[in-house]
């Protein structure tokens, strides 16, 4: 018996979400490949440099917003159903949020791809941050709004299951998989307030022509109210995998239940009031607010450092169960021949590297050296592009058999895939970081300039260019391997009652040691709202006091 046999309805919902996620991954990943060759001037024959920005928008939206959201929805459906031992409460409702998100995705994708049709009025080359006054077609904003509304409904679905479960189990502690899901969604509700105000309150009426002028700083600020927490919305599900599943894949058990809960609570509290750290270089926001955001951001290192400890300790426990000895020799006893483990572990290592460049980004005045340079995408290809994406791909090798009742096929290819991703990302990301230090900008089709040369601090521009192009190509090959393994296993994997060992053992320090206050969702949610109000109420008031649309700028075509 595995998941699909116990919960066939939830399995179908999770699989539907994964299908959309993987289609988005395939298209967005292909765009990434084209960009890697175009930017480096290795091959510019696919599209012209004006169209590059349409592809870049597609890459960002389909990977960072669509792939993540749908994968997370599938993962959480699996975890909530399993840990509360109940199918979704009302399937019509569950499917309605899935279809709402899917329709929104199709609308936004059509708006973006319209940019590749000559003279099309349907365009959205505004990148995934869509800063006005560059204006996209209304389809783009409305589509994204539907995706967000669908994700709210999905969260409500899981709270609904939780309430029903609580009614039947008044004295139980929240199971850890559900705890992590619910706290991630609480954070999502807090941060998407900013996005909803921006998109529904400002951008949709403006793109429909109901108002002509817009104040660029206000929507930008509301975007970043959402825009940093969204990275934790991607990251926490990866943490969920590292806390709940990775210890088991290492052959051990989670180190501490209480620390896991504390980490998720800190993320709920601090994820949103840090948004100004994306606006260190913005005029119109006082240094005091930036400083407050910086202090909160650096405090967010704490839960990630705790995670590092807990995850490594859990893995070490697993390795010792498998006969590992010594201070470091146990590392060799980890299952480096199992794709799901390898992907999660390599993702964790890359996340540590991404954490270091993140500390530079967070450090206000040091940040100015690399703000909006290619260092920044170098950083987030380690975090969301590897820590999150590679974890999601790796855990698919473990989840897919549970959702389909079929064994994984092509295990050798599945094993090569995470190693290839790691290699490709090492090449691409180190070169991007170093090019950023020389001042090479992000988000540009042709980073060559007529009037001056970049002066790299380490290495040469030519070597970096080739590392980016070759790294991007290896990543594309890795992605093709992943998609091939998934499609082959899904369609033709051997049917089995127990296609994978899906047992998750209890933590070493279990829930009996966990203080009850950690499960008090009302308390933590209220506190999170208070911190957001402290960070944002005054600066937002300053911005709107002279009129919501003033000082106003006119829209410009994208």
């Amino acid at each position, binding site marked *: 018996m595995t998941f699909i046999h116990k919960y066939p309805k939830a399995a179908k919902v999770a699989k539907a979400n994964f299908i959309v996620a993987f289609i988005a991954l395939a298209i967005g990943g292909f765009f990434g490949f084209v960009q890697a060759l175009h930017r480096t001037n290795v091959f510019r024959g696919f599209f012209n440099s004006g169209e590059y920005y349409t592809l870049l928008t597609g890459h960002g939206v389909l990977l960072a917003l669509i792939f993540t959201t749908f994968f997370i929805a599938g993962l959480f459906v699996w975890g909530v159903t399993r840990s509360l031992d109940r199918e979704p409460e009302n399937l019509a409702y569950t499917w309605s949020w899935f279809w709402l998100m899917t329709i929104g995705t199709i609308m936004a994708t059509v708006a973006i791809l319209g940019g590749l049709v000559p003279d099309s009025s349907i365009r959205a080359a505004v990148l995934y941050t869509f800063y006005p*006054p560059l204006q996209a077609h209304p389809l783009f904003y409305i589509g994204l709004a539907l995706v967000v509304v669908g994700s709210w409904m999905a969260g409500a679905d899981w709270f609904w299951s939780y309430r029903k479960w609580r009614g039947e189990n008044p004295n139980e502690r929240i199971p850890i998989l559900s705890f992590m899901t619910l706290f991630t969604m609480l954070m999502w509700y807090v941060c998407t307030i900013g996005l909803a105000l921006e998109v529904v309150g400002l951008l949709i009426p403006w793109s429909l022509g109901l108002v002509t002028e817009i104040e660029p700083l206000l929507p930008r600020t509301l975007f970043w109210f959402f825009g940093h927490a969204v990275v934790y919305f991607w990251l926490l599900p990866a943490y969920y995998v590292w806390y709940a599943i990775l210890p088991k894949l290492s052959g051990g058990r989670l180190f501490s239940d209480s620390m896991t809960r504390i980490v998720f609570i800190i993320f709920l509290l601090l994820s949103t009031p840090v948004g100004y750290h994306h606006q260190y270089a913005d005029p119109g926001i006082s240094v005091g607010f930036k400083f407050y955001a910086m202090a909160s951001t650096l405090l967010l290192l704490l839960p990630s450092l705790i995670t590092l400890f807990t995850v490594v300790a859990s893995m070490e426990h697993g390795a010792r169960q498998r006969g590992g000895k010594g201070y470091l020799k146990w590392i060799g006893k980890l299952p480096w021949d199992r794709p799901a483990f390898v992907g999660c572990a390599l993702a964790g290592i890359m996340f540590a590297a991404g954490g270091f460049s993140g500390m530079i980004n967070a450090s206000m005045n040091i940040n100015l050296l690399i703000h909006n340079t290619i260092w920044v995408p170098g950083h987030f290809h380690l975090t969301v592009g590897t820590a999150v994406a590679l974890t999601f791909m790796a855990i698919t090798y473990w989840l897919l058999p549970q959702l389909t009742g079929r064994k994984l096929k092509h295990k050798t290819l599945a094993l090569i895939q995470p190693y290839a991703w790691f290699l490709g990302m090492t090449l691409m990301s180190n070169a991007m970081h170093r090019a950023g230090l020389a001042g090479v900008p992000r988000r540009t089709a042709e980073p060559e300039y007529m009037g001056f040369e970049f002066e790299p601090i380490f290495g040469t521009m030519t070597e970096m260019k080739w590392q980016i192009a070759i790294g991007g190509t290896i990543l594309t090959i890795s992605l093709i391997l992943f998609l091939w393994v998934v499609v082959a296993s899904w369609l033709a994997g051997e049917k089995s009652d127990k296609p994978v060992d899906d047992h998750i053992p209890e933590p070493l320090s279990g829930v009996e040691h966990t203080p009850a206050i950690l499960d008090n969702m009302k308390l933590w949610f209220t506190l999170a709202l208070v911190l957001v109000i402290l960070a944002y109420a005054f600066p937002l008031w300053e911005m709107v006091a002279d009129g919501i649309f003033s000082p106003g700028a006119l829209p410009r075509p994208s």
Partner: protein
Amino acid sequence: MHIHKFEQFWIKLSFVLIAFFVATVVYGFVAMDLKVIGDHATIDPQNLADTKFGNPGVREVTRNGQTEYEVYVQTIQFAFNPGTAQPIEVPVDTRVTFYITSPDVLHGFDVAGTNLNTMAIPGQVAKFTTIFPEVREYGIVCNEYCGPAHHVMEGKIKVVPKSEFDKSNLVE
């Protein structure tokens, strides 16, 4: 709640690390004068003509008995004015304050390879002060996506010896 003693040690170490990072930034602010852009002024992006941005360029001012320079720059799709058509020329070892705004969309103003790096946002004036320590040329890059020809948007700063600084290019 049970926290393993190694984990307690690790958490304390984490706090020390965080304090160290905050201290580094504060030290940069206070001791090295590494400031970030703050809240200077708002401006009507559709009526820059009536402001100093209507006649952009380098101005000479006297502040505290010292000769200093102010540079007003408009970032437009897809050029810096001044900067692209003609370089921004300033003397070495002199205080120069930049005022930057945009009449159309968001742009970036990044002096490549340095930490002179600001957003240009319609409706806001970015202000920062620097002293160029050596005679040389710098490239200016627009580092925020601003439209289909974003990649051609570049400019130049020319830092010249004080004796060679040509004041006939100054604007009033």
